[in-house]
C-alpha cells in the first residue's frame, strides 16, 4: 500500500482514501466473510472498519503499516458484528455419507458441513486467529499486531481453536445439526 497515498488521505484527501479503500475492499471482505461466515455481516463489518479508518486515520503514525492497521480495524468490527447480531439457530440438512472416503464427493460436502459447524463453535477471537493465519497467511507477529495481542497469545489461540474444532468433529453426530451462526 503506497504510503504517500495514506499520507494524502491523512491530510483529508478523500479521493486518496477512496483509492485505498477500493484496493483493500475485496481482501478485507474476504477475511470478514470467513470470520463471520455471513456475507451481509461481512459487508457491514468492512463498512464499519472503513468509517473508523477515515475517522481515525490521523492517529496512524506509520503509513506503511496501513494495511495491518486496516486488518486490526476489520477484526474489531467483526467482533462488534458478532456480538451485535443475535445468535441465530440454523439447521443444516443432514447428508448421510461415509466420512472415511475423501474421494467421495458427498463425503467432501459432508466434511465441509462438519467443518462449518465445528468452526462456528469457536469464539470469534479464535476464528479471527485461524482466518488470519490459515487464510490470509499472516505470520504470528502480524496476526498479533492485527489483533492487538502478544505472539504467545496468537499461538495459544490457534492451538485451542484447532483442538476445539477437532473435538467438535470427533464428537459430531448426525443429530448434532443445530449450530450458532454468530457469537460464542
Amino acid at each position: 500500500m503506497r504510503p504517500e497515498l495514506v499520507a494524502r488521505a491523512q491530510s483529508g484527501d478523500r479521493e486518496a482514501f477512496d483509492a485505498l479503500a477500493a484496493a483493500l475492499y475485496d481482501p478485507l471482505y474476504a477475511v470478514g466473510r470467513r470470520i463471520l461466515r455471513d456475507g451481509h455481516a461481512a459487508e457491514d463489518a468492512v463498512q464499519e472498519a472503513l468509517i473508523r479508518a477515515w475517522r481515525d486515520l490521523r492517529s496512524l503514525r506509520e503509513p506503511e503499516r496501513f494495511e495491518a492497521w486496516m486488518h486490526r480495524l476489520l477484526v474489531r468490527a467483526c467482533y462488534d458484528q458478532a456480538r451485535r447480531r443475535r445468535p441465530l439457530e440454523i439447521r443444516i440438512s443432514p447428508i448421510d455419507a461415509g466420512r472415511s472416503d475423501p474421494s467421495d464427493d458427498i463425503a467432501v460436502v459432508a466434511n465441509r458441513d462438519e467443518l462449518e459447524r465445528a468452526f462456528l463453535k469457536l469464539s470469534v477471537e479464535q476464528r479471527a486467529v485461524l482466518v488470519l493465519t490459515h487464510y490470509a497467511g499472516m505470520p504470528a507477529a502480524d496476526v498479533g499486531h492485527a489483533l492487538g495481542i502478544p505472539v504467545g497469545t496468537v499461538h495459544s489461540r490457534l492451538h485451542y481453536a484447532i483442538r476445539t474444532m477437532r473435538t467438535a468433529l470427533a464428537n459430531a453426530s448426525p443429530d448434532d445439526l443445530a449450530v450458532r451462526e454468530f457469537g460464542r
Partner: protein
Amino acid sequence: MTPRTFDATVADWLREGPESGPRHGLDRALAAARRVEQRPAWVFPRRYLPRPLAELELRNPAPVSAAAVLVLLLLLLLALAIAVGGARPRARLPFVPVADRPIAFQEGPAIFVARLDGSERHKISGDVAYAISPLFSPDGTRVAFLAPSNPGETGGRLLVAAFDGSTPLVEASRGLSVVRGQVPSVSWSPDGTRLAFAASSGGVSRIFVAAGIGGDVVPITDDTANADLPTWSPDGTVIAFRVTDLDGVHRHLRIVQPDGTALETINDMISADASFSKPRFAPDSGPLAYAVNYGFGTRTRAIIDARFTHTAEMWTDGIGGFPDAGVPFSPDGKYLAFITATDGVMVADDQESTPAAGLPGAGQYTGQLRRLGKVADCWIEWVPDGKALYGGSPDGCAGIVVIPLDDPTAARRLPTATSGFASWQLLLPPPNLP
C-alpha cells in the same frame, strides 16, 4: 487425520468461498465514510511526536529546574496582570459585518430593539404586560411578537409593532389565542404584508393567515387535526406546517397555498412519540429541511427533503436544543445549521444531496458536516449575511450568542440581558434608530 493434515484441511476449507465483495458494498461504505469527519491528530500529543523524540522523552525525562518554574510563574503573573489591569476595551463585535443592523429581543417581560453592542436600545412592546418571541418582518420595518396574558399562559395575542416604536401596536390575531409552543408558530409572508400563525379554535390548533396587518384573519386548515409551526415559502406561493391528527399518532408535514387550497403532504409518520420540527425552506423555495423523529425510541435526525422525490439524512445521532426549531438554511442556501444532542452546533453543506439508486424516496447525503462545538443551545439562526450564526447562549439560553463561522471560538455573547428568541433585521439598509 494428523494435526498437520488437519491444519491443511482447515486452510483449504477457508480458501473456499468468495474472494471479493459486492461492488455496491464498497460504494455504500465509501458513502458512509464521507459522512464522517476526521478526528484531529492532536488529541494525544505524545503519540504524534516523531518516534525518536518521543522515545527520548520517555527514556530521559528532562530535569525540572526550579529556576525555570520560577520564570514560568513570573511570566504567568505578568500575563495575568496585563489581562486584568491593562486590557483595552473590547471591540464592538468586529467579526459581524451586519453588526449595524438592529436585533429584536426579549428582556424581562418586554420586547426591545437595539444594536448589537446594546446601544440605542428602546422598548417596542408598549405597555403590554408580558411579551415574547419577536420576529422581524422581511422588509425590516415591523416586529411581530406574542403577548400572553401571563408567563404561564399557553397562548397569547399576536401583536405587531413598528421596529422603531413609532406607531401604535396592532393586534394581528384579532382575538384568537396564538399557540405558544417551544418555538414560535408565526411566519411573515415574504413581502411583509401578511402573517401566518397557529391559533387555537374550538380546542384545535389551526393555521390562520392575517390578510393585512390588522385585517381579516382566515383559517387555511380545518378542525380535523392540530396544525402548527407554519413557515411561508420565500417565493410566497405556499405555507408549510406540521399536523398531528386528533388520535395523537398520525403525524404529517404538509404544504398549502396561502388561500387554503392545494393541500399536499410532504411526509407522514405513525407513532405516538414521532415528531416533525418547524419546516424550513431553502431560499429558492425548493427543498425543505427539518428535524424528524421516527418514533419508537429512535433518535431525532436532521434531514433535507427535496419534496416528492427524496430525502437525505444529514445527521442521525440526535438533535439537541429545541428540536421543534428545525434546521434553517443559510441565506445563500448552501448550508444548514442545527444543534445536535452530543456534538453542539453543526453546519452541513447542501451540495451533494442526491437520490439513492434503487431506493425510491431515499436519498444519500454526502455533503460535509462541520462541528462548531457547544457554542449555542435551544435555537440557532443565521445572521443575515450568512457569515455567522446567532442563537441561545450555552448557559441555559439566558442570553444570545453570535458565532462567526470562520472562527467559532470567537463566539461572543451580546451585552443585552435577553431570554427567549431574538430576531435580526434582514433587508433594509441600516436604519436610523430613535
